[in-house]
């Protein structure tokens, strides 16, 4: 056991699973890097360096550099999965889904159902999401609500290294197609205790990041960390905040969310996905539908505005939900 970052945890999960199961392979743009160039092979290990050294350990058959060709990457991974392989495909940024949604939306997600239960498509798509690093409108979106709305896909959004490792190993061993979303602002935040060996975290089990009695905050990814800071501050003034991190949006641990709201009677959902038809609204509707009687105050949702993500640091900071938005929402709910 050691303190590890999310970056390290994801790399470890990939290495362990590739060593455990020869059917597991990785493919994507520059997952090794350097092919066809005048320098060395394994020049990059992906844009994040996460897959560095896997080429040497597992060889070029299982560490597959591809052209910049997202439809072929995802479609090839789906075809490989349904024919007996266990691919982990890397879609560098989830924004790129704009050019390659079909293999997930119409193929992998629907095979098992429309083929009468006969298909297995054990596929993982790793992809970066989220704002906060000045990557501008086409490299900063949070799109897990789109994947969540597609029956047949599973959707995972870890917020810390322990969860990232256990959930990624689960994703690779899972027999359904899984989209594994990595928030790009979290790779190198201070790490947490993370075992060296392989372990899995089941999908559909929320993490109670913090126990409290006055108000429930549902948050994922970067928002968990903002909520934790706010909860720490508010504890000093006597507000007891409970933070629930669903960790997976599909399947969703509805029971834990409902139990928490039934206990606290108050809910704020702080979420980085869309301001319309997003994950926050899904949770708000769930609680309104099934725990209305427990509510002592209206549900509040905090999302970015309904705009693209702006570039300028001043604008992006204004765009991204922050601690002051959460304090304001909690205060309003508590004072209702």
């Amino acid at each position, binding site marked *: 056991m050691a303190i590890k970052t999310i970056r390290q945890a994801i790399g470890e999960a990939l290495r362990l699973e590739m060593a455990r199961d020869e059917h597991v392979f990785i493919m994507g743009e520059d997952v090794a890097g350097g092919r066809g160039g005048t320098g060395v092979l394994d020049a990059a290990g992906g844009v994040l360096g996460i897959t560095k050294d896997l080429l040497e350990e597992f060889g070029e058959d299982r560490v597959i550099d*591809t052209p910049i060709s997202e439809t072929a990457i995802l479609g090839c991974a789906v075809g*490989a999965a349904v*024919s007996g392989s266990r691919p982990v495909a890397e879609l560098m940024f989830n924004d790129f889904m704009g050019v390659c949604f079909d293999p997930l939306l119409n193929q992998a997600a629907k095979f098992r*159902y429309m083929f009468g239960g006969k298909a297995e498509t054990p596929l993982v798509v790793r992809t970066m999401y989220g704002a906060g690093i000045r990557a501008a409108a086409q490299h900063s979106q949070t799109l897990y609500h789109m994947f969540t709305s597609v029956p047949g896909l599973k959707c995972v959004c870890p917020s810390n290294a322990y969860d990232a490792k256990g959930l990624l190993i689960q994703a690779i061993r899972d027999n359904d197609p899984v989209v594994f979303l990595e928030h790009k602002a979290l790779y190198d935040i201070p790490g947490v205790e993370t075992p060296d060996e392989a372990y899995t975290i089941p999908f559909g089990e929320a993490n109670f990041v913090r126990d409290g009695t006055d108000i429930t905050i549902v948050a994922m990814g970067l928002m968990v960390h903002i909520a934790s800071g706010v909860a720490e501050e508010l504890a000093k003034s006597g507000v007891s905040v409970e933070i629930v991190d669903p960790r997976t949006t599909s*399947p969703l641990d509805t029971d834990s969310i409902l139990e928490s709201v039934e206990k606290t009677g108050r809910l704020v959902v702080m979420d980085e996905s869309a301001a319309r038809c997003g994950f926050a609204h899904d949770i708000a509707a769930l609680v309104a539908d099934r725990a209305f009687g427990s509510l002592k105050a209206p549900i509040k949702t905090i999302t970015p505005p309904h705009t693209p993500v702006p570039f300028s640091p001043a604008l992006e900071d204004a765009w991204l939900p922050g601690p002051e938005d959460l304090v304001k929402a909690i205060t309003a709910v508590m004072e209702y």
Partner: protein
Amino acid sequence: MNLSNLPKERLLDAYRTMKTIREFEERIHTENTTGDIAGFLHLSVGQEAIAAGVMSHLTTQDYIASTHRGHGHAIAKGSDVKAMMKEIFGKAGGLCGGKGGSMHIADLEQGMLGANGIVGAGGPLAIGAALTAKLKKSDDVAVCFLGDGASNQGGVFEAMNMSVALGLPVVFIFENNGYGEFTGADFSVGSKDIAGRAAGFGIPTVKVDGTNFFTIADAAGTAIDRVRQGLGPQGVEAFAFRFYGHFEGDPQAYRSKDEIENVRVDSDCLINFRASVAEGNRLEIGELDAIDAEVAILIDEAVAEARAADFPSPDAVLKDVYISY
């Protein structure tokens, strides 16, 4: 590859496959007029020789990715005709339990990765199946069926390029039937040369008459052999004609009456086949007639059983979305 000495059994198999596809689809065409078949139907009548010719070189270990016009591919790959008919009628016991229908018939046990409602989607899927074959170090191949319409899709371009870059064992079969939906290939294929375009991706591709079993089987056999030998992706552009419209109910105003009538006379793969084997005295006409009779009985039974079968229970709606959830 020289098919002039094909053993008699294989000749009979080829004819049986083509005839089964023909009867299956002609019967669907008729049954559809009763209103008892729901949804979209895309018939491949006229293109049977391509399915039979290509699949005559494949085993169940080899994969195919099909198109929305996929009944013939499934039959030629070995799918159960009666289960297919039930599927098209939306009945329990259908090949996909009634959840897929005509446009999503799949049979993974036979290496049939599915008909596909998304034009060109089979391209990337096929190279994935080819990647599995490569990783297993087998000599299995994946065959991707695409139409002239799909030949214009970006995903197909990507699949062709990546198959060459990664050296994958895949054959692209472009079934050029002259129309993508209601639009002529002469208009929509900018270069008017699908084979040439595939060649531009580094995929050696030949053009053949897809209404003659022997020419398409010969070309496909050569391509598949080359792939099995590790020579990289290969292609075939096979010209044929669809005897019906894009979908059942298509009035085909975009085709002249002459064209619709003439293709059945001049470009019928079954007539061509009978003429070829009679010329060389390779088969007795009586043997072919016997197959016709067998196939007619099979399709009669398939329709009767499909009509008699129950619809799926409504609780099937919630089943098989995930393996576990």
